[in-house]
């Protein structure tokens, strides 16, 4: 912060000490919406303080951020309320005026590092742009020096190299650091970060958040952190603003001890946060006739494993011609899934989890190794046996909106598997479709809707119902809850557990989130770079992780370590 002394005074009498951001009674309305998106929202950020804004999608948290930055979309208006920067009311400032304080006073870290950098400009130029905007007298070498300094501050140790690189040459975490460097370019007093880590792997997320925390302490920055993840918020924030449907329902102080939320919505959010829960979910409602998996395994130990993956490898060719290289997505991975249980595969992006899932359901074939389902090698099935295999093994994709045909109604989507396999027709078919939609706790009025008319959680339930239509034995779920809000996530996970108990299903559950895995899985394989680094029962992996990578993953789960006690006190 050597240049801090040379800083010119901010316009409008904005002060860098005292309250940095004060929003009071803010109400924002969108043109066609009948209800205001944000109502009576008040919050303050002081120097050296990290304030978390928590809420689910649709709670208005992004609208608050946009209003605070003065970048509301054209169809939104501030109906009433006040936004003050450093003691000065900026609610009605024009864009040109605001532009002069964006950078020197308030910095912004956007959500998606993949799309927020200019793809055709070098990183260094993009940081330099932020510096030059507010001090045109600087000479080129000085700007370069400053920009390099910002990159180092943002935690990019090889700043010299990154300076001359394009965004596509950087990993997601490095891009997010570059964005932080840009936000810091003109030494702001206040940093507003909108879901800065939700697109990143857990270990990277931890590193970025740790770094933001250090910056806050080092420069006495005020940070407004918007997140849907209660674990992150409780772990990092000194104060927590909980939003629901455009209103602040509760403001909490976070200290050493667990906060004491009064509002039922906050309690529900905390109860639903996977990082705060530690025990596996138990089925509610009736259990199927098959009984617990252990009992069946004891009766017939030979048939205990429904799916056995043995020394499986899968390579992809990258590039063409002479420059082509072989990339091992999965390298000699082995695991077995016992009947009636949930086996989870956990790892970060690039670990080969999705490839494993696709190999297991036969969407791809392995280069070497064998996959046996019910004792039969799935790579050498006859046409008839393959069709039967496709009936007994079902796949649920991560994103229901891309895996459900947008032109089909829910009713047609659920009927399709039954029609393809000519299991039912006529009244029987209609009856079964209604059963299915009830089984995933949606009512019959949804049958005529299209996927675009459903929320994320509803659409994923439809995808699950579709997978169950043919009474499969094994359901492979590829990150089925990672695109959902926490409370919806909890509902879907519980639904999966209930369905498993009722129908004696076996799950192969792919996830990047150990917190979620702990809720649903019995056994787990931890994967890294195509290899299984550790596997075993979930309880053992959490109690006694043997591989250092597993330990890193567990350490990166956001939320205070005393999470389990927290949870106990809320239910």
């Amino acid at each position, binding site marked *: 912060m050597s240049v801090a002394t040379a800083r010119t005074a901010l316009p409008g009498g904005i002060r860098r000490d005292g309250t940095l951001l004060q929003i009071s009674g803010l109400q924002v309305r969108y043109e066609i919406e009948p209800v205001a998106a944000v109502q009576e929202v008040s919050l303050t950020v002081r120097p050296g303080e990290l304030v978390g804004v928590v809420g689910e999608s649709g709670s208005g948290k992004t609208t608050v951020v946009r209003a605070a930055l003065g970048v509301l979309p054209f169809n939104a208006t501030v109906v009433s309320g006040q936004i003050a920067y450093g003691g000065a009311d900026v609610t009605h400032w024009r864009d040109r005026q605001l532009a002069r304080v964006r950078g020197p006073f308030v910095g912004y870290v956007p959500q998606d590092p993949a799309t927020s950098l200019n793809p055709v400009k070098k990183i260094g130029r993009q940081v330099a742009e932020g510096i030059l905007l507010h001090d045109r007298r600087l000479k080129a070498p000085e700007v370069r020096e400053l920009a390099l300094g910002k990159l180092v501050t943002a935690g990019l140790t090889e700043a010299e190299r990154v300076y001359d690189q394009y965004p596509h040459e950087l990993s997601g975490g490095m891009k997010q650091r570059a964005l932080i460097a840009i936000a810091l370019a003109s030494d702001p007093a206040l940093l507003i970060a909108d879901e800065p880590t939700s697109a990143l792997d857990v270990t990277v997320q931890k590193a970025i958040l740790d770094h933001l925390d250090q910056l806050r302490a080092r420069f006495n920055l005020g940070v407004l952190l918007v997140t849907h993840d209660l674990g992150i918020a409780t772990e990092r924030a000194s104060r927590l603003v909980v939003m629901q449907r455009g209103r602040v329902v509760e403001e909490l102080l976070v200290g050493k001890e667990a906060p004491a939320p009064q509002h039922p919505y906050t309690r529900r959010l905390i*109860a639903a946060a996977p990082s705060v829960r530690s025990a596996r*979910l138990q089925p509610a409602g009736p259990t199927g006739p098959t009984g617990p998996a252990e009992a069946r395994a004891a009766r017939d130990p030979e048939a205990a494993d429904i799916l056995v993956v043995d020394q499986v490898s899968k390579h992809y060719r990258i590039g063409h011609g002479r420059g082509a290289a072989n990339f091992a997505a999965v390298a000699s991975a082995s695991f077995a899934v016992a009947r009636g249980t949930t086996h989870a595969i956990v790892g970060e992006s690039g670990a080969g989890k999705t490839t494993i899932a696709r190999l297991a359901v036969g969407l791809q074939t392995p280069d070497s190794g064998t996959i046996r389902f019910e004792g039969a090698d799935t790579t050498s099935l006859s046409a008839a046996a393959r069709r039967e295999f496709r009936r007994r093994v079902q796949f649920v994709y991560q994103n229901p909106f891309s895996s459900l045909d947008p*032109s089909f109604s829910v009713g047609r989507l659920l009927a*399709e598997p039954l029609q393809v396999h000519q299991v039912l027709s006529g009244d029987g078919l209609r009856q079964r479709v209604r059963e299915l939609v009830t089984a995933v706790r949606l009512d019959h009025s949804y049958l005529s809707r299209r996927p675009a008319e459903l929320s994320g959680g509803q659409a994923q339930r439809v995808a699950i119902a579709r997978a169950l239509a043919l009474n499969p034995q094994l359901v492979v779920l590829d990150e089925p809850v990672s695109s959902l809000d926490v409370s919806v996530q909890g509902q879907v996970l519980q639904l999966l557990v209930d369905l498993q108990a009722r129908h004696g299903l076996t799950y192969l559950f792919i996830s990047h989130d150990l917190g979620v895995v702990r809720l649903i899985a019995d056994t787990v394989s931890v994967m890294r770079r195509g290899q299984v680094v550790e596997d075993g029962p979930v309880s053992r992996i959490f109690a006694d992780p043997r591989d250092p990578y597993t330990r890193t993953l567990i350490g990166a789960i956001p939320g205070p370590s005393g999470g389990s006690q927290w949870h106990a006190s809320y239910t």
Partner: protein
Amino acid sequence: MTALTEPIDSPEAADEVAVARPVASPLRRALTAVRSPTLVIAWLIVLTVIAWAVAPQLFTHSNPLVGNPEQAFEAPSWHHLFGTDQLGRDMFSRVVYGSRNTLTATLYAVLVGFVAGGTIGLLSGYADGTTDAVVMRFIDVLLSVPTLLLAMTVVAALGYGVLNVALAVGIVSIASFARVMRSQVLKVVQSEYVEAARGLGSRWPRVLVLHVLPNSVRSVLSLAALEFGTAVLAVATLGFLGYGAPPPQPEWGLAVSEGRAFLDTYPWLALIPGAVIAVVVLASNRISTASRGRRR
């Protein structure tokens, strides 16, 4: 033990219903359409012309084929909206009745292009690399020949007449329909819902008809609207050159051709049918851009 799920009517479930995505009602969509007056005018023009073609007798009482030689070369007036030609025939009546020939040919042309081009594009996009490559190189050749030349060649081979003109114009447009359809199919085939359908054990004709076709046909429909305008122009051009309906039948292109001889003395004979063609083409282009804009 705690149970996270409540019965269906739990507050959480209610929350979720509340945030379900809004659906644009037909009324709302109609209202959005009204916001663009040019689009409304374009629709009015096209619908009027179609009404002419369907029931010309409702719009004019004059006979398009028989004129009154005493009233030859009358300028446009209230009685003869578009004036009269050298035989005293009412030009408005000839334009109204002529729309039947022109629009029928146009409709057939677009249908031929849409069905044939769409099918080629669908199969080519879904087929393996070699078949796709061979078919697409053939389409490239078709695209490289100037359209009018190709249309004239086809008419010359088939013989003159309105339907043959329609066929010729249709064949010419196959290439662009096939290209657009193929590019859409390539995108849809990559989607997860098509993979999911295959993974379910569906056979490929079922996937093609139920999943790929409905999801890729939309943009081809908006191309059809665009092609409609182009085809009106092409049909009129061939009519102007004398390949289409034989005189004394009324047809727009033919009308321009007949009026050409009197361009310096009685200019409306050529200009008014020409203007009608231009207005109809512009209107259908406007509709086509609107239909493209509505797609996500």
